[in-house]
């Protein structure tokens, strides 16, 4: 009896410790960003493009990188979704579970999931060289799309697998075709799709290596797909490398902006899903 109580106590203590550890780390990270970044954060940071040479710039703002990041991550998420949804449906709804190709494809996506983003950047870069595309918004979107596809496919895969097989039988028994059944699947996994979008967007908006060579950098807001685009993570990287303390401080302000952007997107989508559920 005492042994069971002790076990219970140890298990609970371990869980509490882990939760507290993660909580404290998170608090420290966000705390550092806020404390170091807030003094440099002003309205100009989010409404203006940089004054003068980009990573030594002490005045002006980060609007180029904010917009650039949203364009790159947003574009990649939309493009990735257009590719991932058909892939996930094909592997799970059209092909049988035992299908050798489906199993191989899923394994391949698991591997791609773990490939470092610099590899996607390099691959997209060589693709761009071959096609004669220069570092541009388009290049960045392509690289990040490649990066997020495995994330989306694996997430959707998981979500579709969890749909009870009753849905399949119910629709097929009514004489639905595979595609008509797939459409009902899409309705059923609405919230799962949103999760996939959020994961992909979060990953895309925060990645440096994939965009470093492919999107380039620019002080201006891109107005076409063929112009280079700045991104927040890359801007932070450059600013942190600056010897000037003020510019380093602005790196933290940029990080704060990035965090707030993600917070806004996550909150809005959570509110939207909760509304849908009711």
């Amino acid at each position, binding site marked *: 009896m005492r042994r069971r109580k002790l076990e219970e106590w140890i298990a609970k203590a371990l869980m509490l410790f882990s939760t507290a550890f993660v909580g404290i780390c998170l608090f420290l990270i966000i705390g550092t960003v806020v404390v170091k970044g807030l003094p440099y954060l002003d309205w100009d940071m989010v409404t203006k493009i940089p004054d003068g040479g980009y990573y030594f710039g002490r005045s002006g703002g980060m609007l180029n990188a904010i917009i650039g990041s949203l364009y790159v991550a947003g574009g990649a998420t939309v493009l990735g979704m257009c590719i991932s949804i058909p892939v996930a449906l094909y592997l799970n709804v059209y092909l049988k579970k035992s299908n050798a190709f489906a199993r191989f494809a899923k394994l391949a996506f698991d591997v791609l999931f773990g490939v470092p983003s610099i590899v996607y950047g390099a691959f997209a870069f060589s693709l761009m060289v071959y096609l004669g595309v220069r570092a541009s918004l388009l290049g960045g979107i392509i690289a990040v799309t490649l990066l997020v596809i495995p994330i989306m496919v694996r997430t959707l895969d998981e979500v579709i697998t969890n749909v009870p097989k009753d849905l399949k*039988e119910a629709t097929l*028994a*009514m004489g639905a075709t595979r595609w*008509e059944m797939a459409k*009902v699947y899409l309705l059923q996994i609405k919230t799962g799709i949103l999760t996939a979008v959020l994961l992909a967007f979060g990953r895309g908006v925060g990645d440096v290596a994939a965009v470093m060579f492919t999107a380039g950098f620019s002080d201006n807001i891109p107005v076409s797909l063929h112009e280079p685009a700045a991104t927040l993570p890359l801007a932070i990287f450059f600013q942190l490398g600056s010897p000037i303390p003020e510019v380093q401080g602005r790196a933290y302000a940029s990080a704060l902006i990035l965090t707030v952007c993600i917070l806004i997107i996550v909150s809005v989508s959570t509110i939207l899903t909760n509304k849908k559920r009711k």
Partner: protein
Amino acid sequence: MTQTPHIGVKNLNVRIGDSHLLKDININIPDKSVTSIIGPSGCGKTTLLKSFNRLLDDIPGVNITGNVLVDGEDIYGKHADVTQIRKKMGLLAQRPFPLPMSIYDNIAYGPRIHGAPSKKELNALVEHYLKAVGLWEEVKGRLHGSASSLSIGQQQRLCLARGLAVEPEIILGDESTSALDPISTKIIEDLIIQLKEKYTIVLVTHILRQARRVSDYIIFVYMGEIIEFGPTEEILLNPKEKLTKEYVKGFIS
């Protein structure tokens, strides 16, 4: 029995991997009546039922030989149109599964995929089939509310209405009341008895009393084989085979 029964099975064998689930099944299901398939768990009742509308197709390693004739057409034939075959049969599953849409859209799903009726026709169809299962009065105020907000019993009636809206000739029930409370079960059973005037109905059940209450004929399946087939009273009260006798008396389960 008519010349070509709705469902005729000839030398049907179903294997999944190494297990031989159905062995040399030969049966003609009587039209416009209720036939129950009874037998112990794992004997192949559901497999037999699902072989009628090719729902076994997607099971990994499945191997089906023999013929299932629906209105004289071999549904396992090369040129069989599987969606048309399934359209002829409504399936009432073990657990109700409302499609992730409104009550209205659940009923309208079948008519919509099999043709595009006008808004007015759809409204009439939805009302007709909800009335047919006695759900209209309960849901008419919230037709566009989510179907998953209904109680389990209501959901099962919704699923029945949804199946009927496809205008099948045959209704297949796979232990359709096993998730329901006694009152909902009674409602479904009464509906089945009403529906046999228009439809050929095949039910899988493990409740002998239910088979007795609703069915005209009983098929007793044991270890993948049909042991006995005949009118309900005969099978339950006066079975010819020893195995059937033992099963209906509760010696084997």
